[in-house]
């Protein structure tokens, strides 16, 4: 069990966004979280990555309790994520964006930057560059490395976000609607990419509205609705689950 969520509750000023969520994510699996808008999917990601505080309950990652850990320390433990609305650093180039992902795996401080005496720091910088380039190549965007991040197309920005998250060597990758705003062709590329990341042994937690993508790629699906987990299982089980159909389409008349 790489990630375990116990009795997780989140309130925003009296509004209950998540209620008593239990979830176990197995190592190496592609685990999807689906549900209608406002179901609490992104809230769950924000609690795991530490952007928001937990109201009640616990999150355990690789045997460590995350509750009181600052976001950057959780990242250091091996949690990488992308965002629902792309959040690339607009004043940096594509490559520099991915290199920011190397931050927590390197140590050069401000003063060592200035006094470039030791070869160690120079090697570290070179290594960061190579690693970042490797991940950019992995998502097929090495040729865009020197462009400003804000100047490339939306679908490519999403891929750069994935490369940036991968460059910090995460064991768990949180993908928040990676296919949003992508056309069918771009979605196919993404599909193959996620499969490739999964084959590398990384655990993927995926929020996605594109059902073809979700059903095709995920091994386990959890369904959230109004902050509660209403179903969990293999894709085939979820497709036929009456509670899930009801959450998405409403109740059948006469029932």
């Amino acid at each position, binding site marked *: 069990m790489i990630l375990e969520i116990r009795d997780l509750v989140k309130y925003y000023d009296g509004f209950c966004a998540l209620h008593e969520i239990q979830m176990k994510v197995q190592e190496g699996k592609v685990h999807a979280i689906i549900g209608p808008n406002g179901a609490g999917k992104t809230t769950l990601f924000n609690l795991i990555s530490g952007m928001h505080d937990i109201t009640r309950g616990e999150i355990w990652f690789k045997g460590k309790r995350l509750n009181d850990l600052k976001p950057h320390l959780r*990242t250091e433990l091996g949690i990488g994520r992308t965002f629902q609305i792309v959040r690339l650093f607009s004043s940096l180039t594509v490559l520099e964006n991915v290199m920011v992902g190397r931050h927590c795996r390197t140590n050069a401080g401000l003063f060592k930057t200035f006094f470039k005496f030791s070869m160690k720091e120079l090697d570290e910088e070179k290594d960061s560059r190579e690693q970042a380039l490797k991940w950019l190549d992995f998502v097929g965007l090495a040729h865009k490395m020197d462009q400003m991040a804000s100047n490339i197309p939306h679908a490519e920005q999403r891929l750069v976000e994935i490369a940036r998250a991968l460059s910090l060597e995460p064991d768990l990758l949180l993908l928040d609607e990676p296919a949003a705003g992508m056309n069918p062709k771009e979605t196919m590329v993404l599909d193959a990419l996620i499969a490739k990341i999964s084959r590398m042994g990384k655990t993927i937690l995926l929020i996605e509205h594109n059902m073809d993508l979700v059903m095709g790629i995920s091994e386990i699906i959890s369904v959230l609705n109004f902050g509660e987990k209403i179903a969990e299982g293999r894709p085939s089980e979820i497709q036929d689950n009456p509670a899930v159909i009801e959450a998405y389409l409403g109740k059948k008349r006469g029932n």
Partner: protein
Amino acid sequence: MDYLLSVATIAGIYIIMALSFYLPFITGQISLAQAGFMAIGAYGSAVCTAKWGIPYVPAVLFGGVIAGVLGFVLGVPALRIKGIYLLLLTLGFGEIIRVVFINFNYVGAAEGFPGIPYQKYTGLYAYAVIFILIIFFSRLRNSRMGRAFQAIGNDETAAEVLGVNITSAKLMAFSVGAFIAGIGGGIFAHYQEYIEPLMFGVMHAVEFIVFVIFGGIQIFWGPIFGAFVLTLLPEFFRAIQEWRMEIYGVLLIVMMIIRPQGVIGLDTIQAIEKLFQKAR
């Protein structure tokens, strides 16, 4: 010639001040306390040389270090607030520093601090510091911490989730900025020979911001250009001098409309680089 030299020297000191504002600014921290840090550096170093007989260079460094330490102290509450509130906090701090010096008899209180040993080579020292700062900023741009600073300035939350310790990075940027301002103050004090609290009012802090916004915020050449041009212009066109602040105001509004990134942007630097490549 002497006149030109004195104008260039003052411009040099203002370049240092503009860069001192620029460093925390990269991480999204807008400080109105830079004139206050300058005052600390000025008084700190002046006490060293005039009262304790310490040589110029260590005295100026000492002033910078005191400013840096106070910058660290102010940086802690500054971590939690943003935008207008941070502006108010730093404004208040700058004014407190000024009022403290007004009431501080050891350094002459409101009457000022006379008899600071004159440094003949102030211009040389100022531009040496600028040279070091240029090396620092150009290396920063392509370094781990530099990228982290930029990332924080763009999107603090995203930077934190990507593993950047924003607390330490922002504190570092703020206190090193204060240190640079303190060095600027020390150099200033030994050029003027006489300092008084009025010289470090909040309007000066605003001027440093104008230098940066006008010159350009994308790369450190912007603040250097802004401080240089905006110090020289009023000197050469005496008529402008009295209307300086009004002209700054109009200039800023015009800049916001036609070129919000400032005169010198990344595109300017790239264009210059291309020109040099062609010339070769």
